[in-house]
């Protein structure tokens, strides 16, 4: 995209920065990063229906509420806490048990164990933030909500994300581990697609993350933890 066609609606820097929260999914889906809504409403209605069971504004808001209150990070934190409290021997036994009886839970614990020295208290917060903001953009695209409502969500998550993360690397880290934990696809085409999308965002000068890298801009109020 040449610079003359970038940001056609003259969004503010903060708006463009906040759109970056859903950029991994947007890049993987080949959409524009500098426009809130995507191209094909019908296509995104199908995505919302098949992936999220969302057919109207109320269902969208319910899902957003679930993401806000706990989302995937609640399950992840529970599993992480569970694993942390076990001895190495108990972990081995538990993994063997799940391998034989519960492949999904086995996968989840395997991912947590794989990243045991990498996971911190931030956990997979970015995975929920990315999904919530992408949902808002898809719901606006589908016509379930208006742009104003979508922006409210995107900007609120922007403020939250800047309090939790210091840079896009950290954000991507949390997002991708969350995705691997939740969706299983590690080495398959989908996993590679999302990893490549992230590589593009982190390295291409025209990507929204490289254009808007600053996590300390916009918020001037003191941050409370």
């Amino acid at each position, binding site marked *: 995209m040449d610079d003359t066609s970038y940001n056609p609606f003259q969004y503010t820097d903060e708006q463009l920065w906040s759109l970056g929260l859903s950029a991994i999914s947007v890049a993987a889906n080949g959409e524009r990063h500098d426009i809130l809504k995507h191209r094909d409403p019908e296509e995104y209605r199908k995505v919302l229906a098949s992936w999220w069971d969302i057919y109207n504004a109320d269902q969208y808001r319910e899902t957003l509420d679930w993401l806000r209150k706990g989302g995937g990070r609640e399950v992840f934190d529970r599993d992480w*806490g569970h694993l942390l409290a076990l001895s190495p021997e108990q972990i081995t036994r538990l993994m063997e048990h799940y391998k034989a009886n519960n492949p999904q839970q086995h996968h989840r614990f395997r991912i947590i164990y*794989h990243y045991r020295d990498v996971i911190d208290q931030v956990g997979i917060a970015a995975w929920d933030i990315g999904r919530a903001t992408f949902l808002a953009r898809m719901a606006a695209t589908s016509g379930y909500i208006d742009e104003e409502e979508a922006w409210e969500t995107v900007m609120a998550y922007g403020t939250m994300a800047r309090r939790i993360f210091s840079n896009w690397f950290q954000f991507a880290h949390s997002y991708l*581990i969350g995705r691997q934990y939740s969706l299983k696809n590690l080495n398959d085409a989908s996993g590679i697609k999302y990893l490549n999308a992230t590589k593009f965002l*982190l390295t291409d000068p025209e990507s929204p993350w490289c254009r808007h890298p600053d996590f300390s801009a916009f918020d001037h109020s003191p941050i409370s933890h």
Partner: protein
Amino acid sequence: MQIHDEFSQNLDILYHSNQWNALDEALSETTLRKAQNRDWYAYKMVAMSNLESRKTSDELFILAKEALSFWPERFFFCFLVDMHIARGQYEEALALLNSWGENDPENPDIQGRLFECYKNLNDQNSQLRALFHFHFFTGKAQLNGLNFAAASESFEQCHKMAPDFEPATLLYAQCLFYGKKFSQVLKVCQSIAATSQIKAAADELAMLAAVREGNLALGKDLAKSVLAQDSGNLVALRSLLRIAEAEGDLLNGIYMCQKILDEHSFDVAANLKLIQLTKALIEGRHTTIAFTEEQKVSLAELLLRSGHYAAGTDLLEAITPDSANYVGARETLAKHHIAQRNYEEALACLAPTEHLPRQWNYFSALAAECLYKLERYTQAAAEARRDLAENPHHLRSGFLLSASLLQNYHNDRQPVLDEWEEIQHLLTDYCEDNPDDGAPYLHLAHLAHILGNAQQIHELITQARIRGHRSPFASLLMGRHHLACGNKEEALDEFNDAVNLCSQFPYYSALIARAELLMDMGKTEMAENDLRVLLQHWPKDPRVITLRDAHSMGTT
């Protein structure tokens, strides 16, 4: 129903506003027993327990027993135990606790109450054991909730009470780690015996703490020791990566990333770190190391493998012909182009120059690979021969020579007819060394066809197909084999495959074979389609003309 709802709402209000007297009065025991409502029982019992005159009363005690019999759950269980304790009935409380504890052995509430009972019964040993368990299970419950500070306090108590109980010590060290108290982590981990079963986990934790604390030398030692026990230990590899990064050794950092990715290509941490380090390198933010040209070649290999093609190529292109590393750089670049299927570019890298004489036969092997892929079979065979002259055991070159001669058979038959035994030998050797590759079986089938060994074709092509290899020519040969055996339907299937596999351009041999067979089977209308294509492309071909004549006779 409405009255009932209003009454219930009133109870909720009284309960949540701590109006215990009013709540006690509003819920008579008669109402309670009649309704048998779990929440009302709980409200009533809580209200009574907050009233001095009622809290140890027989009425409340009976209600607590009733409630537990109706709803055997933790709240009512604890309530009844507490009533026993409040009434000084420690043995009864113990009996109840022990019976409940079987279901929920890690419940700190039980251990806390056991401690209370033993304390009042002056049983020192049991008291200490219960207290230890209380701290241990409280710590685990806090850890479950990721409350590291609180968990740390509980495990610290355990550690003080029983320093030899290593599971608690390890959990204590873990909580300290998440509380960023790294020097304490090191101290606590040191207290774990070298022979302990949890020593490996303790070493991992100590290694992480050392690196986070900035004690890189200790971190490195611990990482090496962990890797000596478990060469694939991810935590140790990541620690070495962090150490390399902290020391500004980007090359080693990238190498560590690659090492992790070789085993776990999905690893987010290594993938992202690789991007970060590469970015730093490209943007010139590396400060502490000066690259030698040999290191540049190694680094370029890593960059190319991790998809940073431009950066890797730039590094290699910068190595000048007078450098001792020039040959290595050209080889790496050529391999990269081959992997990208840019065969012409690869050949350009391998072209002989003043600084790159064609004595180095490994270049011939690479050149043969490119030329074969570019379908320049005569040259490919020549390069492969050149490599084989120096390296007779280079099986890939043997394969390329054989395959090139066979592919070129329609232009130049003599080499195949002269050297068929050698070709067969080279291809067979290659099959043995590459048991999953179907391509040599196809070439052997072709050779069998040339030599007239029809009976071998079926087996060889089947072997190629088992290995996932299909080709229009193989289908054509199979079709001819079936036709020779009189299996017309199977032959037709194979000819169909041959035509379909070659959909980008008309495949004369398959089309004519299929059209002739269709005519033979009386399917003249179907044959007409093939005939139309054949006439369009080969109007003067004698077989096509014969077929056209037969077709016009058949349709008139």
